[in-house]
């Protein structure tokens, strides 16, 4: 192969789904040895575009050229044969839950042309271990992929990509489920790939990452390319303007709320191997954040409070009354709502419609004479679609065909009309664009104003600092430190979250 960097060019790509256009003739250029950011609000068409590039979808119109010659990419296999590899946004669509981590990493290898007839298990394991080491990920090779956490799943997919001889790599929001530390390791790998002359498309909603890594930026809005510029010639405000079509002001709107009586009290809660006796409480009108690194046990804490996992000790009280945590239905009756971390598996019923997803937790309120009233359902759904700005072609659309960020909005939105007094949010802004993120914070702030208690679990310290009245730091299954609003810096949080400064408080 010669050393001239390869060039990939998409021009005039158009695609519509059952008559609703998602892309109207988009152009994109990618050179070997560059990291090219692809930005846009939720539903702008980023994923659709790169799925066309990687052969997962067929385009309606448009041309793809590789080094000046038009190529046909009509299947993922064809894309791979041209050296185009992709890590998709929805990790669960790309993993085989029943197979081991090692096999999932080597999945592409099984299907590569000329891979031979027999499977060599020994070298397969060796190579899988090697790529994981490159990523600095510590995941047991024999574990079934279905048992991994979201972050681990994401790492497996990235590892899979590293096993291939790629010329172009597409990463669709790979950092969304990762902690800063893991994201940092990913960036080092990306830089190494760039150094080998590989061209990378990088999709993210975290703008700082863009300016840290990328040489060029393309912004999309509503299925069109707005512009492509060198990263040095633009800035976050410029990008936000292009993405949202309006100026973006304050990322963390902080609404004033009266902090009142104690609503949520958790004492001595234990669950699984990750929640080791947690005490915490949240007052009415208060937003309390729980921060911690990946694996600290935040997700398991929220699930234990909600009764999604069995707890092995401790108590949860809402407004002074103990709540059974045998199953989520009990917690819901007790006034708790949870927006779970893995929306696709846990937050939405993908095969069903937007309307029916949005009304599921509140069906009891939509009855008339004991029967469901279609009018009331529609009114409730309309309200939520408007309030959260869910981009949908109608409430009959199947949620599986919404863009990732809009699915997340459905997962949040369905809880808003409930009578819950305690809201648990587990990483609700993963995969959500900056505009929508603000909308979500606004929603959370409004909930607090209405006198609800909010527990906000996140590994993004910046967010916690931005919106929380109080921040609890979780480390190894326990709360190790508490800060009031404005008391903590990111660095300080990180130190405690890593068990530093003596590890205890």
């Amino acid at each position, binding site marked *: 192969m010669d050393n001239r960097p390869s060039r990939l060019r998409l021009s005039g790509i158009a695609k519509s789904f*059952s008559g609703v256009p998602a892309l109207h003739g988009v152009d994109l250029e990618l050179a070997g040895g560059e990291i090219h950011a692809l930005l846009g609000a939720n539903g702008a068409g980023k994923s659709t575009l790169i799925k066309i590039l990687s052969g997962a979808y067929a385009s309606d119109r448009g041309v793809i050229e590789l080094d000046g010659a038009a190529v046909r990419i009509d299947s993922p296999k064809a894309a791979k044969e041209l050296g185009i590899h992709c890590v998709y946004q929805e990790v669960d669509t790309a993993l085989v839950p029943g197979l081991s981590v090692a096999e999932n990493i080597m999945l592409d290898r099984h299907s590569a042309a000329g891979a031979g007839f027999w499977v060599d298990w020994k070298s397969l394991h060796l190579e899988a271990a090697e790529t994981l080491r490159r990523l600095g990920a510590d995941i047991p090779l024999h574990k079934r992929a279905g048992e991994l956490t979201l972050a681990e799943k994401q790492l497996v997919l990235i590892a899979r990509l590293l096993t291939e001889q790629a010329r172009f790599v597409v990463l669709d929001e790979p950092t969304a489920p990762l902690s800063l530390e893991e994201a940092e390791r990913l960036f080092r790998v990306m830089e190494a790939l760039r150094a080998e002359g590989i061209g990378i498309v990088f999709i993210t909603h975290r703008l700082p990452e863009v300016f840290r890594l990328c040489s060029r930026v393309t912004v999309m809005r509503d299925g069109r390319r707005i512009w492509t510029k060198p990263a040095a010639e633009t800035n976050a405000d410029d990008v936000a303007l292009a993405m949202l079509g309006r100026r973006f002001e304050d990322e963390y709107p902080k609404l004033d709320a009266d902090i009142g009586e104690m609503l949520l009290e958790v004492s001595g809660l234990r669950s699984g191997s990750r929640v080791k006796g947690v005490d915490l409480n949240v007052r009415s009108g208060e937003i309390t954040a729980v921060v911690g690194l990946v694996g600290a046990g935040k997700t398991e804490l929220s699930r234990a409070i*909600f009764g*999604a996992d069995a707890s092995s000790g401790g108590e949860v009280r809402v407004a002074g009354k103990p709540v059974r945590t045998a*199953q*989520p*239905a009990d*917690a*819901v*009756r007790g006034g708790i709502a*949870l927006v*779970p971390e893995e929306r696709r*598996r*846990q*937050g*939405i*019923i*993908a*095969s*069903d419609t937007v309307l*029916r997803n949005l009304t*599921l*937790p509140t*069906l*009891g309120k939509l*009855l008339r004479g*004991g*029967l*469901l009233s279609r009018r009331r359902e529609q009114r409730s759904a309309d309200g939520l679609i408007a309030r959260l700005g869910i981009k949908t072609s109608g409430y009959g659309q199947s949620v599986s065909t919404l863009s990732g960020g809009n699915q997340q909005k459905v997962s949040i939105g*369905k809880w808003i009309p409930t009578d819950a007094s305690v809201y648990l949010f587990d990483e609700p802004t993963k995969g959500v664009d900056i505009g929508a993120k603000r909308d979500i914070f606004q929603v959370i702030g409004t909930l607090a104003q209405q006198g609800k208690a909010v527990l906000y679990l996140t590994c993004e310290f910046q967010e916690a600092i931005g919106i929380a009245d109080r921040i609890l730091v979780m480390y190894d299954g326990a709360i190790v430190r508490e800060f009031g609003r404005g008391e903590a810096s990111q660095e300080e949080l990180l130190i405690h979250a890593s068990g530093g400064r003596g590890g205890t408080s």
Partner: protein
Amino acid sequence: MRANAKLTDFIFKYGSLIVIGLVILFFSLWDEHFFTYDNLASILRSISITAFVAIGVTFSLSVDGFDLSVGSTVSMVIAFSTALMVWYEMPLAVVIIGSLAIGAAVGLVNSLLIVLIRIPDLLATLAIMYVVSGLQQIFTKGNSIYSNMIMPDGSSAPGTISPAFLWLGQGELLGVPVPVALMIVAFVLVFVFFTYTRMGRQMEMTGGNEEAARLSGVRVRRIRTTAYVLSGLFAAVGGLLFAARTGSGQSGAGAPILMEAVAAVFVGYSVLGAGRPNIIGTFFGAVLIGVLLNGLTMMNVPYYSNDFIKGGVLVLALAITFIHLNRRKA
């Protein structure tokens, strides 16, 4: 161009109904006796048993399960209800309540295995299918049961199948056969259940994604248990109607009904382009199967072609629907 697309969409959406309509039209033209009130009532009566079982299957499919044990529940109820009358001379109320209790019990056992031990639905209900059909055979020692039957010890049984019971399968209410009336009431109720009640909606949502439904506060265990209990109950009604219609308790009679009910539900997937289990579809699926059996008999088509024609119509209906669904998706 646009109008054209609309037309094909229409054909696809109503494709299965059109197929059913054409089949009926064809038979009506072939033989003037086909499209008469009497014969249509006959057809509906002939499908009523399968229809009840198919409603049961629809429930289990709606929670993304599958109840293979309904056929053996039918057999069990046939044997049990007739034995109560013939062996023990029990009054009608006891017979009916006892039979429904058996259906519910089978449903409970199924859901115990599925919900508590978390055995996948097909596996659990296949095992229970064998268990229940075994229990039925042990209960009757493999015998069929009929009025004043001769017992293994040579004596004759004291009871008969009561006329009130037979009326359930053979009687008429204002000119409508009783099983047809029951079936229509059942379909309407179940339709209302799925469309307008909270529990019906929760069932379908549980079927769509159990974990997400659970995390939305749906008591999924209770919902799935309910679905299997309802499945057992409707199968039990099917068994009662079978016994009332034939007036005797044939051993193992329910097994073939399973396949027929499943076929009805699957034809139903096609109705209105739903592509998934739905109660209106189940009704039309059952009708189609009844119409075919009746019409082909009238046409004097060799009996051995029935399966082929049934399969062909099924393929046609499914193909129309799924070509449509996939065109829409792509």
